[in-house]
């Protein structure tokens, strides 16, 4: 079930009616069953996979907690890691590695005899796997007390707002909240609803409106002029931002309406002044997960420059691979790893330039933001092409060469001018709200003034009606 669909609106209405009528254990059951219903609406066959992961991690958690023997504890946590990553690896990466190996074998002049399997990727597997995995690891690290109530643990894994596409809420953030007795509060309800509406606006009005223009340029890049391609790439950067952060807004808002506190997943990432800052503002729940469970265990920045670079690169390469089974995603991760390394080299030089030339702060910030955005844009081209299968690198390179050629760099050469104008207008609305939000804190404001709330909610719904694309388009991050 996806948020931007009629079945979900009906589901949510029924769920919230029931949710505040029940307490304690009944509520846990409601959360659990509604999560399974929500997920099963997409494909009930994969409910068994979630259930199995849940049972195994719950059992291993108990075992890790009970055991005083460090070796046994370690074995159990490794078993959890292996199990979770095996599922993820099989469903998501089996064909990718089989294909890659076949290509390698063919390049050596041999003909491989195996074939790939027709594997369906279970929606959200990357998200709930990481979430469940964080539990056993944290119990092993003794950062989190073990959960002895299976229903509560199962409800934690299947909590529907974040089940399909995050944010990846860690066990130590969410499990303690499962025990709280949450009563209905208007303030929380209004705050959550405001967030949900803003998320819908970002997804339905912005991301889905930009999508056709973007799809067109990645389908046949050779037929478009350079300005058309450049606009398409810029549009993609906002499409993916609004698609994913829109989902996160809806998830955070729904959770807030239920009484849960989810961590923020995006903080205006395109205003980042460095790549390290970018990764504290883009998909925060994943980047912090990778930082805590991969980068730091690898040694982080504690063992000299070379190992820091290596750890940066490994983390970003795996982060890229997490997004999808295609070398283009890995290359996207490689680019971001490279950016992080280059930043460490270039940043001191730039700081010296700023000091010597006495550049004002707004120029310094402006240059940095522009540089980070431009390089991010470059990497997005490979990321977008990553979903195109074997042709991904060819298409990405065509788009880049098309932009750099400078041919037909005029507005007159653009075929869908109206889509461009609509896209620019919507991005303008988004940026205006996000920039003014630094000062005005819109969601706080609507909570203090009911009249503001009425106007803001109505305005959002009017904007959705006027600009929205109502095809129940799935969220991009579902495929990851």
């Amino acid at each position, binding site marked *: 079930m996806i948020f931007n669909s009629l079945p979900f609106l009906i589901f949510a209405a029924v769920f919230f009616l029931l949710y505040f009528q029940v307490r304690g254990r009944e509520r846990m059951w409601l959360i659990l069953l509604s999560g399974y219903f929500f997920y099963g609406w997409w494909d009930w066959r994969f409910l068994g996979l979630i259930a199995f992961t849940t049972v195994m991690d719950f059992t291993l958690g108990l075992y890790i907690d009970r055991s005083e023997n460090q070796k046994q504890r370690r074995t159990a946590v490794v078993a959890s890691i292996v199990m979770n990553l095996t599922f993820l690896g099989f469903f998501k990466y089996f064909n990718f590695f089989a294909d890659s190996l076949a290509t390698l074998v063919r390049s050596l002049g041999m003909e491989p005899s195996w074939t790939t399997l027709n594997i369906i990727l279970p929606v959200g597997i990357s998200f709930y796997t990481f979430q469940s995995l964080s539990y056993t690891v944290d119990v092993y690290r003794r950062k989190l007390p073990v959960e002895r109530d299976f229903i509560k643990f199962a409800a934690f894994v299947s909590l529907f707002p974040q089940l399909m596409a995050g944010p990846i809420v860690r066990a130590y953030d969410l499990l303690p909240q499962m025990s709280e007795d949450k009563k209905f509060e208007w303030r929380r309800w209004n705050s959550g609803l405001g967030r949900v509406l803003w998320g819908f606006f970002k997804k339905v009005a912005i991301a889905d409106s930009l999508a056709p223009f973007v799809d067109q340029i990645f389908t046949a890049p050779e037929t478009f002029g350079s300005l058309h391609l450049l606009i398409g790439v810029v549009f993609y950067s906002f499409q993916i931002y609004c698609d994913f952060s829109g989902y996160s807004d809806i998830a955070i808002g729904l959770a807030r309406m239920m009484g849960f506190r989810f961590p923020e997943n995006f903080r205006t990432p395109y205003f980042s002044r460095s790549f390290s800052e970018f990764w504290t503002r883009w998909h925060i729940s994943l980047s912090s997960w990778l930082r805590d469970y991969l980068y730091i265990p690898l040694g982080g920045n504690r063992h000299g420059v070379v190992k820091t670079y290596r750890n940066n690169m490994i983390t970003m390469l795996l982060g890229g691979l997490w997004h999808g089974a295609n070398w283009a995603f890995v290359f996207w991760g490689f680019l971001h790893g490279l950016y992080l390394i280059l930043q460490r080299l270039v940043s001191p030089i730039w700081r010296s330039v700023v000091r010597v030339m006495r550049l004002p702060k707004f120029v310094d910030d402006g240059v940095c933001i522009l540089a980070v955005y431009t390089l991010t844009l470059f990497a997005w081209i490979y990321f977008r092409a990553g979903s195109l299968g074997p042709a991904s690198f060819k298409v990405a390179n065509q788009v880049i060469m098309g932009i750099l050629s400078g041919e037909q760099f005029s507005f007159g050469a653009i075929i869908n001018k109206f889509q461009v*104008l*609509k896209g620019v207008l919507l991005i303008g609305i988004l940026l205006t709200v996000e920039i003014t939000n630094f000062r005005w804190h819109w969601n706080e404001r609507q909570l203090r003034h009911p009249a503001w709330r*009425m106007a803001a909610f109505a305005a959002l719904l009017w904007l959705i009606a*006027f600009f929205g694309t*109502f095809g129940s388009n799935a969220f991009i991050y579902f495929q990851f």
Partner: protein
Amino acid sequence: MKHFIWYAAFLALLFTGDRLAGWLLQRETMASQFRYSRLYSGRAGADVLLVGNSRGLTFYAPYIEQSSGQSTCNLSYNGLPMDVANALIQDYLEHYPAPKTLLLDITICDRANNELLAGFAMYAPFSPRLSGLIRDSLPKMWGGNQFSHLTRFNNEIFQRALFHRKKSDKDWLLDRVIPPKLVAEVAQQQYPLEVHPQLVTSLQAAVQAAQAKGVQVQLVISPYFPGFAQNVTNLDALKTAVEQATGLPVHDYRQALGDPGDFGDFMHPNRAGSIHYIDLLRKDGLLP
């Protein structure tokens, strides 16, 4: 209780604002110089009615009017499907004196286009035919349009109407020369044209309605880029189907223009190409 009152007020504001904004946008739309706004506000009477999809924009109205002294109304639109064109033609015939000629490019039958049909929602209050088409083909959208009037304006047709608010749309045409790198690929390009029997039936209905009003109907296949027409599959099948359905000959200009400089892309003659094409149509007596 206080919160429920606020939410009730919110719903009232939401509904009232939607209706008010819908009314304002409707007013602006109908005052526009855009073709369909003129059609549904009584400002589209003409001697020659021109109909097609994006290829129908090749019927370059300023040149026809200048060379023949006849007034024109071009109902063509990018991706316009024949079922919508049928509704537009019949609405025209119902509200205006019969034109002398209806010139129709039959490649308009190559696709159904519900996405574009949705764009005509803002004209649905003025056309039971369009309203019925939307209700039958897009029932959810039709329901949404009744619930929120703002959704009727959430489309490209509205944007074009706004763009042409004070600016004539008669010279709307793809005016560029096909890029050389695209020309080099002409042999590899395929255009899978499909014959949709229900669209041929719509064309037949439009032709019969026009003939019943004494309109001289001319059916044509407009020019394709040299060497491209053979890559368009089923063109002959479409021609035969239309001739059988209407009993009229289809005048075939698919290879009438031989100069690559006459085209904006493989499918569309540019301004120069359109002028050459219109000269041919006039010479052959299809246009006055």
